[in-house]
């Protein structure tokens, strides 16, 4: 891998590349350098490649170019965008997974995210009929069925209710599902990226249920979207009365179209598919509906041919985000190993790290906010001297549940359950700092 650049020959070549690219625009220059670097040593990560060569005329003792001129003024960009040097931080998909991008999934770039909040433009996408463009003035939420008074709410009505704001992760239950039978995704973004965490603002569903008056025989709620797939899921009333939120905003602004604008459900800690986007209807009934997304899909096939249904909760999981295949270790010496942990059952209590493939474990520190059903960041500062590692993280939540090994999961579920793979993940760190996705059995 070229990310570890060694030897004067390589340096000379890079300097030459940098010189040759002087006349190009910044973007083209980045492309040019990236391609050049790939030519030097094969596939390179966009990140390191982009940073590998700096124009020395902007470095001390020289005064950088941007210090000798004026930048743009206010509202030149009324809605701000990330720096052009961060253009590699984007959602990505695995094209062969699905038949068509209109009904598909993309992954968040976990390898480049900081803290626990996923920026709105990087929240993973999952559509079944593409993203509808909904005029909020023409959007309605209908609540009916076994209720005293069926009600139609406008967006304005919904926003009049006292609101809550909660930081919760949302995860597709198929996250990691491509690796039940073996490691095959050579990137963190693809092994764990069907996962995001936002501050969601809206009305607790129990408030709306109180408003319509659920009849005593009401036990289940059908939630339905307004998009072309009219995605529908049956949700037990207990969940709705516990912590389900009817959400209209994320991270301080109204929902993004791809996240359900103008209205969606959030079922904290549960498989993302139940958090219906473009929410238009909630029907209260006495039994579940057994629709396509809770029978044909989102059921977990066991080795005996029977399948689990209503497997809602996303169990405790964790992954090391730095280092990772996209961000290998580039220097010997002090190193902060970082990662994220999360549990659909509550708070993360502890994360342990193993350097030897799970033979010995050391406790890591939790840092920043530790919230229920939210991403929690962990950290372990150590030194790397070029020794190979089999790096793992293992999370424990407040219920005492310990993240299982892959072997344990396979023994219990076989290899065809697709969903809910939350096993301990292993990165193999080579002597040159390269990180590979491996499995230990």
């Amino acid at each position, binding site marked *: 891998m070229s990310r570890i650049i060694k030897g004067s020959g390589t340096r000379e070549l890079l300097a030459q590349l940098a010189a040759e690219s002087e006349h190009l625009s910044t973007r083209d220059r980045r492309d040019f350098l990236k391609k050049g670097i790939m030519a030097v040593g094969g596939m390179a990560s966009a990140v390191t490649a982009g940073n590998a060569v700096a124009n020395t005329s902007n470095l001390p003792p020289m005064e950088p170019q941007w210090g000798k001129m004026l930048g743009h003024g206010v509202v030149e960009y009324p809605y701000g965008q990330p720096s052009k040097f961060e253009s590699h931080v984007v959602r990505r998909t695995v*094209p062969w997974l*699905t038949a068509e991008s209109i009904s598909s999934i993309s992954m968040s770039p976990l390898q480049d995210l900081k803290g626990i909040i996923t920026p709105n433009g990087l929240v993973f996408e999952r559509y079944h009929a593409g993203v509808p463009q909904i005029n909020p003035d023409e959007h309605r939420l209908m609540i009916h069925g076994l209720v*005293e008074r069926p009600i139609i709410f406008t967006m304005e009505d919904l926003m009049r209710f006292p609101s809550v704001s909660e930081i919760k992760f949302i995860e597709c239950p198929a996250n990691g599902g491509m690796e039940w039978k073996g490691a095959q995704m050579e990137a963190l973004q693809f092994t764990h990226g069907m996962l995001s965490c936002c501050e969601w603002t809206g009305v607790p569903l129990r408030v709306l249920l109180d408003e319509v008056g659920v*009849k005593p025989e009401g036990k289940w709620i059908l939630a339905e979207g307004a998009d072309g797939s009219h995605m529908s899921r049956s949700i037990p009333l207990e969940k709705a009365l516990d912590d389900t939120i009817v959400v209209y905003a994320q991270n301080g602004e109204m929902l993004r179209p791809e996240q359900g604008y103008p209205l969606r459900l959030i079922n904290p800690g549960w498989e993302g598919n139940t958090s219906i986007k473009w929410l238009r209807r909630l029907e209260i009934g006495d039994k579940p509906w*057994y*629709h396509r997304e809770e029978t044909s899909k989102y059921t977990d096939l066991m080795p*005996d041919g029977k399948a689990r249904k209503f*497997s809602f909760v996303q169990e405790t999981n964790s992954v090391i985000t730095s280092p990772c295949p996209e961000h290998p270790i580039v220097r010997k010496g002090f190193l902060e190993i970082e990662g994220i942990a999360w549990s659909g059952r509550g708070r993360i209590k502890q994360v342990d790290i193993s350097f030897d493939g799970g033979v010995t474990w050391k406790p890591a520190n939790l840092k920043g906010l530790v919230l229920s059903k939210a991403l929690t960041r962990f950290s372990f500062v150590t030194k790397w001297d070029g020794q190979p590692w089999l790096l793992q993280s293992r999370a424990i939540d407040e219920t005492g549940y310990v993240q299982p090994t892959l072997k344990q999961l396979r023994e219990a579920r076989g290899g065809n359950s697709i969903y809910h793979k939350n096993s301990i993940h292993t990165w193999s760190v080579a002597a040159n700092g390269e990180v590979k996705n491996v499995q230990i059995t």
Partner: protein
Amino acid sequence: MFKLPKAVCVASLVGALAFSVGQSAHAGEKFGFGETATPEQIAGWDIDIRPDGKGLPKGQGSVADGEAVYEQLCATCHGLFGEGEGRWPVLAGGQDTLTDDRPVKTVGSYWPYASTLFDYIRRAMPFTAPRSLTDEQTYQLTAYVLYLNEIVDEEFVLTDENLAAIEMPNQEGFFVDTRPDVKNARCMKDCADPAKLVVTGTLQGITPVGHFIEGADAPAASHEAQEELEREKEHQRKAASGHEGAAQAATEAPAPLSDAALAGQSVYNNACQACHNSGIAGSPKFGDASAWAPRIKQGMDVLMGHAINGFSGESGIMPPKGGRVDLSDQQVKDAVAYMVESSK
């Protein structure tokens, strides 16, 4: 404000108790926001069906009639026999495969209730034109897909009376989630025998490396297809940067679109692209000059005729208006103009 009879207050006690502190300033009192939904409003949106038949509209449809509708609207993606084209869902077959290494989960082999099929077709199919089918067509298609799975015979007529009684082969194949199903311990040392660790690496050749090359992000059916796409792009880039290519590119700006083509652009984006963007089921791909050339050669009248009235050829099936019968003839013609002019 909506007045509550006493009985309602008791009935809603569950909700009121669950109300968190700070949410309700006046316990028991409603906010009174929103309008009462009328039966007509509810009827228009209440499309869901349950296994017991609740929600089914009055009506019926035969297997025989379903075959014609299926071939016109469904076969393009799902295959003539429900075998599935490309990565589109397989509908039939797969019996007794649920314990196999590669189970085939179809309506017949996996789905527990026939109501789910009616409900899903009604809410989401056909993919390119959801909510466009009549109740009769929905009965017909449900009957036909059941027939493809040998659950009903070819004489069968499905009705709102008999649907709930249909027994699906895998009806008993599901059980409620029992997790946590594994119990790991928080061991800190000597947790495994280092000598017995088996480390397996990444299966090669499936990570979409193209995503790490700018400009290469595009749907492709496989890793090979992705690589081929990248090679092709690289080839084009080289050709364009060569002396002749560069000179040509400088003088030859793309021809501007006609008014019809411009009008057809939004029709394409809303309808046709579902198939023509990826070229599924043998459809000529948008921008693929070699795929379009032989079709354009037949003349625009033939092309327009096929697009409006449907066409079944060697390479694939074009349903009438691509299944979007809601489109006017003119809209279809405009969209064809847009595709043709963009694929020369």
